[in-house]
């Protein structure tokens, strides 16, 4: 069985026939070509696959593409507007909030969710907000600094 679905990824609409078992993360990467979204643990623990679904962060490895039919997805590639990096991307760059970079797209999308729900987080709230994203380089200190800087920049 295939199902006809329509998902908009980063402003581009994709109408595709998919197997119901196809995961949203595979739709985004394989059909959409947006490979910034990573597959890490594949068990909704590491957060590498975090994207925004209708503006709200979720783990795209634990969602069927058919569940997202009619929805709008934003991935890391969709954050920059007209060549201008998002303040979170700027801050992760400035504060060296990454080492190998594999967790970074998910970290930034999860940070986006944190600042959406709590625009002025304490360091504790940042760590709690990013609890579902694992950095195996263990570069958490600079990630927290980056989110703190982005929060300040976005408040201006």
């Amino acid at each position, binding site marked *: *069985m295939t199902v006809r679905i329509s998902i908009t990824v980063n402003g581009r609409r994709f109408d595709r026939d998919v197997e119901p078992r196809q995961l949203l993360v595979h739709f985004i990467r394989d059909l959409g070509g947006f490979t910034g979204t990573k597959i890490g643990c594949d068990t909704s623990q590491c957060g590498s696959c975090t994207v925004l679904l209708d503006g709200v962060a979720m*783990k795209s490895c*634990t969602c069927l593409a*058919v*569940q997202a039919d009619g929805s709008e997805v934003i991935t890391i590639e969709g954050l920059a507007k007209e060549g201008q990096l998002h303040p979170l991307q700027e801050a992760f760059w400035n504060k060296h909030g990454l080492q190998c970079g594999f967790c970074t797209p998910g970290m930034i999308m*999860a940070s986006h969710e944190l600042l959406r729900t709590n625009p002025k987080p304490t360091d504790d709230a940042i760590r709690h907000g990013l*609890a*579902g994203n694992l950095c195996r380089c263990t570069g958490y200190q600079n990630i927290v600094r980056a989110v703190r800087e982005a929060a300040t920049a976005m408040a201006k």
Partner: protein
Amino acid sequence: MYASNFNYLRAGTLAEASALLQKNPGAKVLAGGHSLIPLMKLRLASPTVVIDIGRVPELRGISLSGGALTIGALTTHAELAASAAVQDAAQALSEAAGHVGDPAVRNRGTIGGNVAHADPASDLPAVLTALGATFHITGPGGRRSVQASDFFKGMMNTAVGEHDILTTIEVPARAAGQGSAYAKFEHPASRYAVVGVAACVIVNGGTCVAASIVLCGLTSTPARAKSGEQALVGQALTRETIAAAAGKVGTDLGSDVLGDIFASAEYRAAVAPVYVRRAVEAAASRAR
């Protein structure tokens, strides 16, 4: 990892979902997908038909009336944690919902999916048992209601039958003098409870007149700590009386404690009294 192939059917209403479920033996109901999809990816579940109820409007929402919270099965953990009504009327539920998984998981995972899945390490079954929740189910024979004490039948096994849909969960609103809390030692990656404790006390004139203590993460279904509860009733809730009650949970748990590669049964049983003490102390401090 890909699940086995299945046919996907999307229900627009509860009646339609129920009809699809009767027509498709072996079908599984999909809500937020945060319990079912992981099982299907591991091929521990391979349903031939999946019925998506995620867009059924009548299964959404939280309301407080007539001394009870009514929570739609599709209510997400994030919605529960953000609800002022839940925070006031069911403190332990609010607290536990805010600590299920992580923010992204809480945005998708639902209370109905969580309890219908009935993972022994899941937080909400213990909390809903401690708060005396009632589960409303729609099935081939119509509607019925099941008390929390009869709902969780075994590991990943509940009163929700093959052709049933869990529709709403009703939680009695906080009574005068009542306080409740949830304390857990969480697995650092999955954030499931290694040991989780829901406690609810009612204090009248400085004396505890009712107590419920329910643990998760240790046994196949939520475990009621009856000896601990009995030790609290009739007492003023002090550090000493709470610690004495917490010390009794070992006898309530018996020899059925589960262990895994992360934490042995012995370790979980040894840690349990600490979390019982923390949960009861927090509940007592909120009793008003």
